[in-house]
């Protein structure tokens, strides 16, 4: 495979697996692997009730809202959180998650008169900020506590925040439309001017451990 073919291969891998002629650049095996691997968030999942699904979506969007760039909902983060809570968290972590979402479901309407997802954005933000303050002594917030897999006793708000941020910046939308995405740079330039509004590159090496 020469470099031009390789670039084509990457274009295909980067999200247009059915675009005709480009498919020829992939090996049968790589093509099959892609066909067998749709985006993770396209998987079906029926773990959360409709109400809890709305609460999680509102929490994720509060943490990473749509601004002039897409937000958590645009990037499919709510589905990511539901999939991860159902399939990836261990029993102990899932118990924390379920207690947390149950608390949101009952406490918020009691204290604020409406379910979380129906509150004004400012109110939603204030609630999550209060939850962060209450969780402030968690080891989760310790400086540099990032290069690890997951903190099993992290409070609910930290769980949701971590899954939101990780799910967002490793999503297709977050990688391409919020961060800068260049999976096949071809060259290394160690002195590229950085504008005030420029984003980081997606695909940092640490993400799989993050």
């Amino acid at each position: 495979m020469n470099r031009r073919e390789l670039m084509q291969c990457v274009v295909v891998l980067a999200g247009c697996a059915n675009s005709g002629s480009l498919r020829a650049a992939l090996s049968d095996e790589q093509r099959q692997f892609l066909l067998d691997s749709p985006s993770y968030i396209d998987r079906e999942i029926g773990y959360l009730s409709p109400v809890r699904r709305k609460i999680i979506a509102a929490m994720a969007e509060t943490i990473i809202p749509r601004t002039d760039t897409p937000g958590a909902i645009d990037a499919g983060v709510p589905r990511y959180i539901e999939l991860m809570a159902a399939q990836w968290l261990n029993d102990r972590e899932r118990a924390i998650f379920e207690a947390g979402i149950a608390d949101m479901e009952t406490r918020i309407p009691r204290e604020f008169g409406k379910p979380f997802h129906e509150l004004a954005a400012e109110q939603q933000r204030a609630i999550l900020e209060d939850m962060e303050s209450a969780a402030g002594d968690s080891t989760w917030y310790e400086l540099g506590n990032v290069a690890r897999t997951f903190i099993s006793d992290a409070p609910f708000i930290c769980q949701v925040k971590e899954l939101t941020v990780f799910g967002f910046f490793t999503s297709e939308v977050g990688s391409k439309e919020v961060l800068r995405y260049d999976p096949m740079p071809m060259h290394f330039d160690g002195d590229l001017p950085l504008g005030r509004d420029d984003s980081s590159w997606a695909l940092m090496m640490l993400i799989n451990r993050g």
Partner: protein
Amino acid sequence: MAESQNPDFDAIVVGSGVTGGMAAKELTERGLKVLVLERGRQLRHGSDYLGEHAPPWHLPHHGKPLRELYADQYAVQSRNYAFSEQNRPFWNNDRDNPYATDEGKPFRWYRSDVVGGRSLLWGRQSYRYSEQDFAANAQDGHGIPWPVNYGDIAPWYSHVEKFIGVNGRREGLAQLPDGEFQQPMPWFALEETIKARLAKKAPDVTLTNSRIAVLTEDLPGRAACHYCGPCHNGCSTGSYFSSQSSTLPAASATGNLTLLPDSVVTRLEYDPATRRVSKVLVTSVTGEQRAYSAKVVFLCAGTIASTQLLLHSTSSAFPDGLANSSGVLGHYLMDHPLGLAGMGVFLDNMESYYRGYRPNGLYIPRFRNVGGQDRDADFVRGYGFQTMTFRRDWSMSFNSRGIGAQYKEAMRKPGFWLFALAQFVECLPRKSNRMYLSSRKDRFGVPQVVFDMQWSDNERALWDDAFVQAQRILRAAGAVVSIEGPREMSTPGEGIHEMGTARMGDDPRESVLNGYNQAHDVPNLFVTDGSFQTSASCVNPVLTLLAFTARASDYAATQLAGGHI
């Protein structure tokens, strides 16, 4: 006897990784019919690197570790920095292929289990040993003298560098000889800033390119690096050296290569009448047993596996292991302690960013005890630093406080620069550091390996010094804040530089191999993986293994042609 007159092959090579691939190439190119036996499964270059370039959103859980599976089946391998969901199929399954350790003496044995072996997963750092490295044992009395000096091996370094493709900067340093380099990879602006400051404030320290086997110029069948980042997921352009991308295709092109995957070598049979290895016994993963014969046998299975095989291949002539009349087989096990000595925060070059994921950092060659003993050093030998430069991003700061648009903005944008120093420390050869065989057997009937290894006071003193020097370097470099890494020494094996258990030397009473990697006791047996190493140096060993393998292959072919084997 018919079978010794008409062996199945001219040469059998055990293992298809870094050294097995090079032995196969060099031997087949000299006209020998070669059989390569690989315990791992077949993996086709390129087409089977399924996780290569796979974006995270295509991976289950966006690539997050599968914790239960790893704990159950990859308890050791999953601790490795290069282990990921994109390349998990390359690694050993620890449940199926376990090993043991002495209580209180842990050892990490990272292994691959595919054709290409750890050459697919290695860190690609490629340095020459120096004249001082080859002379160290003779000078300070640790270990035995090397039977080879720098001048003997220098042409072979050149030979393999040209073939595998190493990029680097020429520095003219005695302690890190220059090689045949491709164009060096460019630097971050911050690295240029740091170099200029070190030149003034720490002139004894050289900051240079790490010399890595990644192409910056095309070679036949291989393309220059495209800077996608994670080399260890496999590289279908062959931009980094692996036996898959380089040596095995070259061997195959001669028409002289037979490669059998799924073939576990369980024993070498020795014929006392001829003083030769007469048969190589193989069990397939399905349990089928076979035997092959050859005029010469090259063990390239990796230090631990090759030594395991020799220890297990006992006979009345060699009750303590094949070619072990010296009794040193399995002893003098070495690895490089490695850790994070220090990391600095830099606010220079904040308006300078980068494009491309450079697959390496820079390198600070050994600067302690160079050319003689430093007065303030309470240790012998030295260490080098591999450096890493990165810009803080969301993945390094997501656990900060904040909810909403401001937090999103902070996560989206690059933060300050970080420059880290990772020390690689020379380990002295000591008899008490060893591997031996357990009474427990693996699923192929071979006794499991047990490790008994601990760092010595010299490694500890070097380690402590690295922390002191790292702080001096980071201050001189202009760090606004610098922090120390963990002081606890790495677990033996974590350097993934196992060496020394079948060491070479001139005296057959205290070494297993001669200076051509040939067993003193068994003339048709060569061992060219890290087990031959008489001392460890502080530099990464792979280039040295490749050079010795090429030289041993040339020697074996010549000896065969001359009727001496």
